């Protein structure tokens, strides 16, 4: 405990170093900016700026990426509350009560509440991270290849079945991602696989190219000429953003409960942030004495989900950093960025790179303060920015994508990859597949294969090793339970004669908000 606090102190020292602080600030600012822009979320923000980190020292690079992440998340809330436009899926639920508040002239209050909730929730998340990560690391040190393979299997399964849409399709997408991860040179034998004689493919596919193709180009391909023209007539003053005492009291418990939900779900690898916010919303509605008022501008309907999203964001870093298992596509990208820097996330990360780990944690706190300081005076600018038309936005973004990908290796070949994955992504989305699990599979693929092969090498080809070793067996059992549970609920949904609905859709249906409205920007 004392050790953790001392390490945290050391982390603050790292994070407060001039250049680190500057990059952290830059990340939060740019993330906030991109997050506000309609149609751009954390995923596109990070993919576009990832190439920049290639030339950077690992510490400022990771601080900047983290800053982009929570900056864009807060930016997304602004669009959701003021314009009913969730540019980042987790904020879809914030629209339900946030936008009615804006219509009632209380948009500023909603933003203020969101800000307080995000700070509180992030602080709790950070504390959990400070104390849980070293414990988790201690356990993780006992992991051999067998255990690592099993927990990765669980993470992949959870990631693909518990996110949005059909679980079966999620699994298919994860498998596709694993396949993409195989392209390149086999580490064990040195032979080229799936490179089709193209020399540029012998190093494997480029992470940035895949991410930009799937989350940038594919979205543009599908949405051009379809995004509605946005007109906002909100004018906001700083004064409007301070909630009254009564409103604070109303927000307090939902904020605490939301934080709890987010922390719980953050600890489970594979549960996406969208599900988390929907559950927090459902919980508030269930507990509330006036559930029928939800959807008309309830403060609790904003405070709960926003708090859960921000605490989850922080806690999400625990499995990513200490086990090397990203919870969702954003974490997969951050993990990928670390790998590119030559840093292997995992139990040894905290001891080998204390500056990265503790610096990151400290920078979260600093970043969240920056977020508040930044947003109070800038809110008017954000409102203006929200009105940048999509027709200017996507051509500019196409340029940033092309140049960004080129700069990763100073090679035009990667742009072909972007185009290919843009087309693949558009095709898959048109067929109702969710593309996020591809990232998860792609980043984890090589590690999954390596550990699978090593474990079986050790057991001389005996597959039972995965179930006979206690820790590994537990993970396999959880995976099996998960599969049975998902199959069971899908089967029951089929019997009722209607498509199996995710929790998110159920909440939406009960809130009587047309899902179309939300699916648009999601």
């Amino acid at each position, binding site marked *: 405990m004392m050790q953790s606090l001392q390490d945290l102190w050391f982390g603050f020292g790292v994070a407060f170093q001039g250049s680190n602080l500057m990059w952290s600030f830059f990340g939060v600012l740019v993330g906030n900016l991109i997050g506000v822009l309609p149609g751009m979320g954390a995923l596109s923000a990070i993919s576009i700026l990832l190439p920049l980190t290639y030339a950077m020292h690992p510490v400022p690079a990771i601080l900047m990426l983290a800053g982009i992440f929570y900056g864009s998340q807060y930016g997304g809330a602004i669009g959701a509350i003021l314009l009913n436009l969730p540019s980042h899926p987790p904020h879809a639920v914030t629209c339900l009560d946030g936008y009615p508040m804006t219509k009632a002239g209380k948009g500023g209050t909603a933003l203020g509440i969101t800000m307080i909730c995000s700070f509180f929730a992030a602080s709790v998340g950070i504390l959990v991270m400070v104390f849980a990560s070293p414990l988790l690391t201690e356990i993780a040190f006992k992991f051999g290849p067998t255990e690592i393979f099993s927990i990765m299997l669980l993470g992949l399964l959870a990631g693909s079945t518990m996110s949005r849409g059909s679980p079966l399709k999620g699994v298919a997408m994860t*498998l596709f991602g694993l396949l993409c991860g195989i392209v390149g040179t086999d580490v*064990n034998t040195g032979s080229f696989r799936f490179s089709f004689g193209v020399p540029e493919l012998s190093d494997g596919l480029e992470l940035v190219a895949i991410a930009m193709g799937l989350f940038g180009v594919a979205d543009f391909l599908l949405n051009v000429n379809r995004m509605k023209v946005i007109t906002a007539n909100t004018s906001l003053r700083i004064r409007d953003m301070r909630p009254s005492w009564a409103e604070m009291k109303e927000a307090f418990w939902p904020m605490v409960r939301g934080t709890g939900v987010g922390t719980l779900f953050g600890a489970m690898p594979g549960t996406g942030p969208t599900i988390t916010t929907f559950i927090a919303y459902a919980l508030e509605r269930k507990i509330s004495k006036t559930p029928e008022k939800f959807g008309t501008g309830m403060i609790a309907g904003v405070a709960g989900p926003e708090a859960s999203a921000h605490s989850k964001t922080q806690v999400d870093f625990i499995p990513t950093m200490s086990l090397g298992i990203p919870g969702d596509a954003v974490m997969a990208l951050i993990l990928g960025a670390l790998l590119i820097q030559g840093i292997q996330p995992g139990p040894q990360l905290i001891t080998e790179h204390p500056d990265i780990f503790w610096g990151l944690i400290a920078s979260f706190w600093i970043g969240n303060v920056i977020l508040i300081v930044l947003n109070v005076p800038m809110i008017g600018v954000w409102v203006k920015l929200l009105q940048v038309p999509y027709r200017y936005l996507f051509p500019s973004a196409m340029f940033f994508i092309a140049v960004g990908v080129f700069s990763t290796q100073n090679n035009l070949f990667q742009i072909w990859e972007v185009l290919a994955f843009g087309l693949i992504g558009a095709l898959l989305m048109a067929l*109702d597949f969710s593309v996020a699990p591809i990232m998860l599979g792609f980043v984890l693929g090589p590690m999954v294969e390596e550990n699978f092969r090593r474990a079986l090498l050790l057991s001389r080809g005996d597959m039972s090793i995965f179930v006979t070793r206690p820790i590994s067996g537990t993970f396999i059992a959880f995976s099996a339970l998960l599969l049975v549970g998902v199959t069971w609920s899908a089967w029951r949904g089929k019997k009722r004669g209607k*498509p199996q609905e995710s929790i998110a859709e159920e909440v939406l249906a009960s809130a009587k908000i047309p899902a179309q409205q939300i699916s648009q920007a999601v």
Partner: protein
Amino acid sequence: MKSPSHFKKDYYGGALMVLVGLGATYASVQYRLGTLAHMGPGFFPCAIGVLMVVCGVLIAASARSDTAPAAPAVGHAHGMPDMRGAICIILGVLAFLLFGEYLGLLPATFAIVFISAMGDRSNSWLQALLLSLAMMAVATIVFWWALQLQLPLFKWGA
């Protein structure tokens, strides 16, 4: 725009997964499979290919007819994309590749921004032109000058 029903989408989606899975399996048996204890480079991709085929069959088998036409799923419930927009974006990327290879950064920047912008039906050619000029300025100042991008502003030939 009328989008195909979930029923059909699941058939197509399942078939696509089966196809990709079969392709991966076929490609990986060209490499050495090896044994469980000493896996060759083809073993893991082959296993994934087989799993994908199974997944695809299950997706197609669990396809349901649309009983309720309402509420598209949360997520991407798109029909066909708008063709003019999509084609312009693709052409823009191809033009960037071509111009970047033979003419340099500025022509490439102009091409990708202008062609993509023309894909949006509400953009006039003047607006597209102004936007491209603005992005050329960004390309010069931010990428070429500040970030030292390894692509000359102008060049002739590869």
